[in-house]
């Protein structure tokens, strides 16, 4: 289903993050006329196209959404390698997370770094990527009272997600460690190391 988001926006319902990512990739490859923003979310892709012929764009999006809904042929992990994030696991909440999950801190580290995660979408602040695919054992709640400032490079978890703080900001996620890897740099092109669909692996430094 495609919903109008005002006169210039169309919100395509994909129903899943994987379909959102495939539709995002198809749209970026094709760039239908006047498209300014393509914003994938967990179950949607927002397309903003001021001045576009909305009927034609809607038709094209219907076709592309149908193509994106088909399971991909071949190995979708082929091609670009995963981004490896070296982590010093000395976060302020590591012990608490271990206590809450019934694991040792070493086991928390092993489970956090043991799987490949995928960037679901970005939001909250520029370059802040919600990483999906976290080991379900590590799904913990946010802090009841968020910290007023979390340092840049903090590696954290909350709910089903992990993240690397791209800049210092307030935040309520549980801090497991920190990385020197710069995930956000306005002088770089693209400015973000993470994009929707980027595969990520944490590695104890």
């Amino acid at each position, binding site marked *: 289903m495609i*919903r109008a*988001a*005002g006169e210039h*926006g169309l919100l395509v319902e994909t129903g899943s993050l994987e379909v959102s990512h495939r539709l995002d990739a198809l749209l970026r490859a094709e760039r239908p006329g006047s498209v300014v923003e393509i914003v994938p979310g*967990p179950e949607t892709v*927002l397309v903003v196209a*001021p001045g576009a012929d909305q009927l034609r764009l809607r038709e094209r999006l219907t076709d592309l959404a149908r193509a994106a809904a088909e399971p991909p042929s071949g190995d979708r992990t082929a091609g670009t390698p995963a981004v490896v994030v070296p982590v010093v696991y000395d976060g302020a909440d590591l012990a608490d997370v271990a206590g809450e999950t019934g694991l040792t801190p070493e086991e928390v580290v092993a489970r956090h770094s043991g799987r490949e995660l995928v960037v679901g979408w970005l939001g909250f602040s*520029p370059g802040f990527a919600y990483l999906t695919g976290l080991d379900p054992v590590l799904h913990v709640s946010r802090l009841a009272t968020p910290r007023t400032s979390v340092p840049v490079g903090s590696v954290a978890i909350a709910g089903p997600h992990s993240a690397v703080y791209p800049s210092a900001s307030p935040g309520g996620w549980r801090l497991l460690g920190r990385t020197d890897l710069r995930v956000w740099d306005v002088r770089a092109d693209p400015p973000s190391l993470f*994009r929707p669909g980027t595969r990520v692996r944490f590695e104890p430094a």
Partner: protein
Amino acid sequence: MIEVIKPGPYATVQDLGRPGYAHLGVPYSGAADTTALRLANRLVGNPEGHAGIELTFGGASLAFPAGAWVAVTGAPCPLISAGAGMTVPVRAGMGAPFWVPAGGELRFGTPARGLRTYVAVRGGIAVEPVLGSRSTDSLSGLGPAVLRPGTVLPVGPVDGLAEISVDVAPLREPGPAVLRVVPGPRDDWFVPGALKELCGRPYEVTQDSNRVGVRLSGPVLERARQGELPSEGMVAGAVQVPPSGQPIIFLADHPPTGGYPVIAVLSAADLSTAAQLRPGDTTRFTLRKTPT
């Protein structure tokens, strides 16, 4: 260059924003009232997307060590051009290009109506762009710092610009605003009468409104569905409804994604009107009649 003697309550550099980065979590930003900024730029022969100064509630004083052509649009302020050997300060007009001589000073009073006043200078404000834009993004902190007393703003080159060819442009009157909306994308998250409720009695603009959004107080918009909406892309002009049921109209610095349902979106032409609403103003919504 221009030196800020005082910025008034809140002033920033703004152009037409930072498109193309929403999927990386970067707000669009740019002038809240793009209609006014575009007009100010045209009046001094700039391309419409040059950076200008966005004043909030007027109140600024700007010094011009070098002379410059200037145009002021948006919320109408009393405007005085002083100094530079002028025996008497001159009352300058809105919506018309005028010359500020070297050593001159522009003083802005408080607008009687409207909220944001735009100052364009021939050549444009030439601060360093960030991700392709000179706009200050109040949500993420990208772009130049908020203006302070003593801030020095470079002015860009004027060679090659269009001639100044307009004497005066009629100003849009910030008035009792009726904002046209297109339903959705999530109007089905609300009880059947909610759109009617939105377009019924007026809403009042509250004190905590800013460049992110116009926060409103009025009829409560009741949800039919509980639970959380998975985060999704947001557009400028979205009327987002948090659990309080009190709507927020998203302006230029809105977050690129959000998890509260959007009951309707402003007609693009009315976004500039919404950007001129000030705390205490009342506004009404109406369903846009003919689809375009």
